């Protein structure tokens, strides 16, 4: 066996090293509290943030021979330069989540299990890495499971809270259900072709005649399974409850990192495996209706939400619709738009969650009317929240408008003009509910507003990263230009 193949997996290896170091560090740093004594916090959070930061910087952009497509282990592992970019985006997102988690993990209930949070989260990231770089359905499935099963533990992390445990149970059940659907779809595909390698599948699925129906069925089940992960309507039913029950930090992680990686993988697999013209037209039709349903229904539900975490859940579903809009047609332009959208959505959404989290940690309040008059007491937070919400709604000069513009442009170019029009009309609806929060903070008066407080240093760093992204990622066009150099589409 050629051991140099491992060198192609340097991102995975580097992350694995980070995980092992944190594991050992946690072992030595945390002390078991003595009988009758309160648990003490450890500095493991700092270690995790620094290590992940180093890992992120080391693997930030494709270099040193990783600019081209490489295949290892007989096609099980495939890597393209674009995947490095996506993994970098996931890294940054996870880093921001780690930074904002510090205050929450410092609570007395959580002190004893600080290290576990970082470990579990990084394991899911590792799973996403393998899922992204997989060249074989088995590899893909292992990555997917590694990325979703530990998430249930994260969702139920606040086990002293009834809702958190309930959300964890809901999440694991539906995640398994969707995995089963996906596996069934894959098994049908295997039944037709007798292989699970993406490249071979792509070649063998071209020009099917007698087994076309079976292939379409497999494709449908595959999309349904992925739809659960990305939480597209009608596979979104777990989202609101899970997001509401999970700790706010984990909700942020779920709504950005986990969802974003799944959307990217959906695109690459569809492009590679189901590249046949007939099949491509099938999945384009399927995605068309999924997108219309996701955007519209999620928007209508979001308007009525009073709990901000639930609200963000529906907002995330509708944003997922926009994300998948870039998949339509499977073009190189779409891929750039998707990755760029992911980046911009991540900073804006995590910015909102960082603020929700810090307010919740300081006052325990999460409802929309709790934010009435926030501007009076915490003007800076209200201002940053406004920037992030504007970005989510797609208001220039913030990055959100650029990313939406590019996604719509890609879908328009792929020939889905009316879909773009529907999506655009929906951005107006989404603007309405984002403005409701702005209205609560700036215009509504409250007798009992969230009291003024100072955020901790970690949250500040997280907010700086997010707001810098929101303000700069759009205006400085370099990001899009750079990502575009690595994009590839279907032939």
């Amino acid at each position: 066996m050629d051991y140099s193949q491992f060198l192609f997996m340097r991102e995975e290896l580097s992350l694995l090293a980070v995980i092992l170091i944190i594991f050992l560090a946690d072992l030595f740093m945390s002390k078991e509290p003595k009988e009758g004594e309160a648990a003490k916090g450890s500095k493991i959070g700092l270690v995790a943030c620094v290590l992940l930061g180093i890992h992120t910087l080391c693997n930030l952009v494709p270099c040193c021979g990783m600019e081209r497509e490489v295949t290892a282990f007989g096609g099980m592992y495939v890597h393209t330069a674009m995947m490095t970019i996506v993994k970098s985006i996931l890294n940054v997102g996870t880093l921001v989540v780690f930074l904002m988690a510090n205050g929450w993990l410092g609570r007395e209930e959580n002190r004893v299990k600080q290290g576990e949070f970082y470990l579990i989260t990084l394991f899911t990231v590792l799973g996403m890495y393998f899922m992204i770089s997989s060249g074989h359905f088995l590899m893909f499935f292992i990555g997917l499971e590694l990325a979703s099963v530990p998430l249930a533990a994260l969702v139920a992390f606040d086990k002293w809270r009834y809702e958190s445990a309930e959300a964890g149970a809901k999440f694991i059940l539906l995640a398994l259900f969707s995995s089963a659907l996906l596996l069934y779809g894959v098994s049908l595909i295997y039944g037709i072709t007798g292989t699970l390698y993406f490249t071979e599948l792509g070649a063998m699925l071209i020009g099917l005649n007698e087994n076309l129906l079976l292939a379409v069925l497999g494709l449908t089940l595959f999309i349904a399974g992925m739809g659960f992960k990305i939480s597209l309507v009608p596979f979104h039913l777990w989202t609101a409850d899970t997001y509401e029950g999970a700790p706010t930090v984990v909700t942020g992680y779920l709504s950005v990192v986990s969802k974003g990686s799944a959307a990217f993988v959906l695109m690459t697999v569809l492009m590679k495996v189901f590249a046949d013209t007939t099949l491509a037209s099938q999945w384009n039709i399927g995605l068309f209706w999924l997108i219309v349903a996701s955007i519209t229904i999620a928007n209508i539900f979001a308007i009525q939400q009073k709990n901000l975490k639930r609200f963000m859940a529906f907002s995330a579903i509708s944003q997922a619709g926009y994300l998948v809009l870039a998949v339509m047609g499977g073009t190189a332009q779409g891929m750039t738009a998707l990755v760029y959208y992911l980046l911009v959505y991540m900073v804006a959404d995590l910015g909102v969650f960082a603020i929700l989290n810090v307010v919740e940690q300081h006052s325990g309040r999460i409802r929309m009317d709790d934010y009435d008059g926030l501007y009076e007491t915490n003007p800076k937070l209200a201002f940053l929240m406004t920037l992030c919400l504007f970005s989510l709604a797609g208001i220039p000069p913030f990055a959100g408008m650029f990313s939406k513009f590019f996604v719509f442009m890609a879908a328009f170019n792929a020939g889905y003009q009316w879909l773009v029009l529907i999506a655009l009309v929906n951005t107006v609806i989404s603007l309405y509910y984002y403005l409701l929060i702005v209205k609560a903070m700036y215009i509504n008066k409250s007798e009992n507003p969230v009291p003024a407080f100072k955020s901790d240093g970690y949250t500040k760093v997280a907010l700086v990263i997010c707001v810098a992204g929101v303000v700069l990622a759009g205006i400085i066009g370099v990001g899009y230009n750079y990502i575009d150099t690595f994009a590839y589409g279907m032939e």
Partner: protein
Amino acid sequence: MNFLSIFVAVPLLMLLGLWLVKDQKGIRAVMVAGSTVLLIAAAVLTVMFLKERAVNDAEMLFTASFDWIKPLHIKYSVGVDGISVAMLLLSAVIVFTGTFVSWDMNKEYFLWFTLLSAGVFGFFISIDMFTMFMFYEVALIPMYLLIGVWGTGKKEYAAMKLTLMLMGGSAFLMCGIFGIFYGAGGLTMNIVDIANQTNGAHAIPVQVQHIWFPLTFAGFGVLGALFPFHTWSPDGHASAPTAVSMLHAGVLMKLGGYGCFRIAMYLMPQGAQDLGWIFLILTGISVVYGAFSACVQTDLKYINAYSSVSHCGLVLFGILMVNQVAATGAVIQMLSHGLTTALFFALIGMIYGRTHTRDIREMSGLMRIMPFLAVCYVIAGLANLGLPGFSGFVAEMTIFVGAFEHADTFHRFLTIAGCTSIVITAVYILRLVGKVLYGTATNEHHLHLTDARWEERFAVICLIFCIAALGCAPLWVSDMIGTGVAPIVDHINTFVTNASFNPFMK
């Protein structure tokens, strides 16, 4: 950097300055300094433009272009023609006077106000569709907070309605931009390139134009208060704080007309020729309906807001006539309406700040109590109804003369219907003046009110000066505008109307 970018750079510097200063004096200093620089820059630009225009007959002058998002052919391109210079001048005047009118406002107010003006200036200097669209939206969103936080009356409702309707318009617009971009070959976003089919652009197929022209025109038309998308305008203007009403009615609504002309009609000429009649009917309704609605209102701001609908309708009416005279008149109408409405809203704000009511039934005899404001109000009213010597007369006259050049019944009928709005305007303006300003004061609370302060007088006098100047010496402005209008109108007129689309032309 091209020097046109000053118009965006100065507001950005003002934002920075506002962020740094601490007290009210500092805020005022930053605002006055910044808006004066903008005004001077606009004046200098006008002189430079006229000089350059005499020797250079390129369509856009002072152009510059920087690559921005290369894979999608998006550039930051700037350039001006006669129309945009006139609009920049108007915006500079309104921002300058608006600063004085909102003398006592706080820092956040001015932050959003300045962001809004950055968007407006950026819109008028850009000749790249993406840049233009971005600045367009930058100018829209601050309105939400400006009205929602600092407004009066049903401000939350009005702010939300205004924002959503305008953003709805811009959603159609974005689709229209994609339609134009990909219809023309997807190689350039530059407006002039697409129109002249240079740099890889080809003619947009006719059926594509027929789909995207109505959407683009309606998208901009929402901001231009096109019937039936005008309903945000009365509520929004009535609830907005004074300077915001000024800026919004004075400048922002012009973005609509400007965009309709420069993007929708110029880039999709065949669409404009074939389907323009639909919008011509709608603007005809706007003109007459707005004037009639103004007659029955009792709130000063509502009266003026409906009057704006009627006068902005004339702008679109003029450009849809697609001839040199009417389109020039439409652009002069943009200037004229911008100045008069700004003056009107400034005065209404000042009166409201004193009487705390805008209901004309509760006010009378203000001429004795606040003579300066009352006299200025009369002047504004007369300018608005198109008295010769003021800008309104020049503008409306030119539009209707141009419109009358069309000899067919369809255009004649609409022109005559549009002309009636002049009479109706006279009705509501004179009724208002007679009721509110003359007569004896019946409300004793109003007897002890004071007249305008120095900064208010200064703002009002500036505006009246501009209106009178435009009315007395319109030639240099209309010549300058004419040079900008000519290439666009000529370009559209090289395409022949397909009369079968218009049931009224058969």
